[in-house]
């Protein structure tokens, strides 16, 4: 990915209903999900399919601020809160055009 693309990336949490984008990365510093199991939000997001180059679409979004968002990725849909969605950096469709 070039520096120009990086500059265009935004957090997934900022997208509105109907928006499409391409995942750039999941940020490194994400909260722990479980203190005992030491699993992190970032690890799970990657497992669910939020990996570089994958297309995503915000299919539904709750009022008033898109919390949670329903995000479609690789044919599956997940409900993400603003805070989880903020960990996924995406390049909105059309941003590179």
């Amino acid at each position, binding site marked *: 990915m070039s520096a120009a693309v990086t500059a265009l990336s935004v957090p997934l949490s900022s997208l509105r209903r109907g928006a499409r984008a391409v995942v750039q990365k999941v940020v490194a510093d994400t909260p722990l999900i479980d203190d005992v199991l030491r699993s992190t939000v970032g690890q799970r997001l990657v497992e669910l399919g939020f990996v570089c180059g994958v297309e995503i679409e915000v299919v539904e979004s709750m009022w008033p601020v898109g919390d949670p968002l329903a995000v479609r990725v690789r*044919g599956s849909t997940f409900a993400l809160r603003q805070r989880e969605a903020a960990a996924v950096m995406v390049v909105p469709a059309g941003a590179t055009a």
Partner: protein
Amino acid sequence: MDIANRRLADLRIALVGVPNCGKTALFNRLTGSRQKVANYPGVTVERKEGHFRDRAGRRYDVLDLPGAYSLSPTTLDEAITRDLVLGRIAGEEPPDVIVCVADATHMPLSLRLVLEVQKLGHPMVVALNRSDLARKRGFRLDVAKLAAALGVPVIETVAIAPGGADALIAGLAPFAPRDRMIEAAASGNGATCDLAPDRETTEHTQQVVPRILAEAGYREPLRTRAAARADAILMHPVAGMLVLGAVLFLVFQAVFSWAEWPMDLIEAGVGALGGWVSGVLPDGALQSLLVDGVIAGLGSVIVFLPQILILFFFILVLEDSGYLPRAAYLLDRLMGNVGLSGRAFIPLLSSFACAIPGIMAARTIPSMRDRIATIMIAPLMTCSARLPVYALLIAAFIPSRPIGPFNLRGLVLFALYAAGVLAALAVAWVMKRFLTKRTYHPLMLELPDYQWPDLRSLAIGLGERVRIFLTRVGGIILSLMIVLWFLASYPAPPPGATGPAIEYSFAGMLGRTLHVVFEPIGFNWQIAVALVPGLAAREVAVSALGTVYAMSATDAALEKALLPVIASTWSVATGLSLLAWYIFAPQCLSTLAVVKRETRSWRYPLIMAGYLFALAYLASFVTYRVALALTP
């Protein structure tokens, strides 16, 4: 260990798959009703095991593992799945063959788990489930090429169709049980080393997934227009909420109105049985035990079987259809305000059937704090065991009057359920505000595709509920009824006594003692007696009242039915006060026992019992005093 007892040819298989992949439907298809549900030792994760035989007569033991997205767990359920496939659970043999269930409609997600499991190096088979459904939506995949790319057999299954698992059964036939002697000698050679995959490994697997899928000529199934349209309505911030409210309202109306005629039927049957036994047996202690204790007691509980079935029917249908996670999505923000996760919706909804499965379902909430908050308020969801009490009191004190398209009784029932929910929200808010530190916990909830509920799984689920209910009726409730009958019958009244016999009995004495406590909230001594066995099971309160009143009847006509008796002898204020009491109903020992087991401490069950009792007493006191002031 039962290794030695089993014939060598028996095969032990474990089903592994991501949540919502149709794994449980496949388990039901394979094993039918030959299932056993228990817990893993030391934890409360459900262990579902079943077995079947193939045409050649070979026996297969099937273990249905909890759904897991990955072998790096975020929940206790996922941790169990990981530990079991790794053979790390004491007393659990690792399976001979892992059947990794892949959902054709969610291939990338499923395939990633397949790759992770494959790395373990155990014998495995991939069951490609739902490919029929996926094909209708434009899915393409060359199964042979996928098998070649993975290096393990890939077998298509249709879990919801008869014979849909036959190919899988045939595919398992060539496998032999693992040689445990050799394995034991070779253990520790690194094959089952600790491999919680880190972020980098996961990212790498995620790069392999599209490569393998491309090799197998994969084309992703499209999201149907119907599903998109359904989501647009059901997940809409306003329309979705209205639909959710309507769905819940419909469920409660149905519980009350559909169940009416089978309940009348059961009631008539129980009455006829009691009459027949009275006619056949001579008057005396045995006749009294059977008619007043056993038949009157059990009959008044069994009569609620239809309502409990209807409630479970709706919960299972909503769960199977994929609607419940959408409801959790809608409510997440709202529930977040009082310190709960949207995920808590599913355990809380199950608590409407019974708090015990609800509290156990809270295991799927990753954070311990969220989990405890959910557990603590689960008993405020009106469980089906309270339904008998509500049903009896509503029928006795609330007139059946149409209000618009609804019935006043249905509305009152709905209001009681709503009161429980509001109380739960208030309690959760107080806990969030004053008791726990807030830390952040994610939602990350999958919204599965909509599907028609599988009738077979529905039938198995309902059958299981009926079995549990009837075992309870036959076990705990029956024994309590006999004890209560004894307490209510002895000591016999002194000669020349004028009042009903029960007033001189142990139960009468106990009731009068407790009456001191309950008098300010309008309970008479009969209610006080009935609340005691209600400790073991809430619905017993009704049969206990049945027994207490049957025993206190001075003329034979009064023995017939409980309903007219309480309608004529209790004041409306007392009836309403008891209804308010049951919104909180602190006296369920099995719930407290499960809380103790789930939280592994006495602290939470004690806090729970204390706060529920205080709230119940307060609510009843206010209700009783207000009702007294308002009624003539």
